[in-house]
């Protein structure tokens, strides 16, 4: 670097020129006044303007390759296809749990059997905590558990052996 002495005021002015876009109206006015009287700063400003002008001119002289845009379109289409395929694959994975078909069918049958069995068990052995369902008949309230007991007692007496609840309701009806 050359041995250059620049006055402090000029240094500030030159900083302002470099960061020109940030100057207030008053600073800008002061800068213009200074440039009228200071050839060094004027030269600095002209150099800055010269560089910017030539760089801008250089930009407009560019001719971007035509093939690039075509390749970008292809890439974008690929990415879009890939994204859709990924979404579909995820959904399939979510549904199939990556299981084989026969395994999946076996699992479905086991679940159906379990639910059916649970239902049967509940019918044969109703939970003790279950509250009896009440219904209205001829303005008098009858509790189903009581009715079941009465019906079962009558049926067992008639058959001469114990009877399950399913058989009880399929073969006998409670009438008032």
């Amino acid at each position, binding site marked *: 670097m050359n041995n250059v002495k620049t006055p402090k005021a000029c240094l500030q002015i030159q900083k302002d020129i470099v960061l020109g876009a940030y100057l207030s109206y008053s600073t800008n006015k002061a800068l213009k006044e200074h440039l009228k009287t200071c050839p060094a700063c004027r030269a600095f400003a002209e150099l800055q303007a*010269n560089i910017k002008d*030539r760089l801008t001119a250089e930009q407009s002289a560019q001719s*971007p390759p035509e093939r690039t845009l075509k390749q970008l379109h292809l890439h974008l289409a690929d990415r879009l296809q890939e994204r859709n395929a990924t979404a579909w694959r995820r959904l399939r994975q979510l549904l199939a749990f990556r299981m084989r078909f026969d395994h999946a069918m076996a699992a479905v049958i086991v679940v159906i059997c379990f639910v059916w069995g649970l239902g049967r068990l509940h019918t044969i052995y109703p939970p003790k905590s279950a509250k009896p369902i009440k219904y209205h008949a001829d303005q008098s309230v009858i509790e189903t558990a009581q009715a079941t007991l009465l019906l079962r007692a009558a049926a067992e007496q008639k058959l001469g052996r114990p009877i399950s609840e399913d058989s009880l309701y399929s073969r006998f009806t409670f009438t008032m």
Partner: protein
Amino acid sequence: MDWKILYSHRTDEALMARVQKGDARAMTVLYERYNRRLLVFFRRMLGGKQVAEDMLQETFLHLIDRAGLYDSAKKFSTWLFCIAYNLCKNEYRRRQRRKSSATIEDLLHSDYPLADNLTVDLHEEITSRFFLEAVFRELEKLGPERKSLFLLRCQQELSVHEIAEITGLAEGTVKSRLFYINKILADRLESFHPSPHKA
């Protein structure tokens, strides 16, 4: 075309939001807005038409691949030049590893075209080219980081705030470095503008 008129009124950020959804037209408009700016940036940063064209394509491929990462609250040009800046850094690292960094001579004898417009005064064109080559010869000496700061400010006319975001430097650092670079250029390019302050 109708869609070009329609899309040309949209902001970069709105177009980028459409690119995120896979809109090829929005990408075309963004490409047309920025291709020259990026091309000239890469040519000055990395020297060479072919490299610059490859980098331009690479930048937009990154844009497509990482579209989901773009935050529409941020300025698009900052994000785009951030990608470009990082690509330049990677290229410099790659060149350093291979020890085949572009020399000043490469840049001076690069395949830089004269202006396409033949009506431009040839003398002016040659002077301009000579002047710019002198500027970039000096910038080469300052290193790639300072050259990129200079280009982002003087060539791309980005704000100090944007440059700080792109480079990851503090705004104060960007300001002081920009001044330092321009001061050095002014001192070293005295032959173009003789300074009366010389002792």
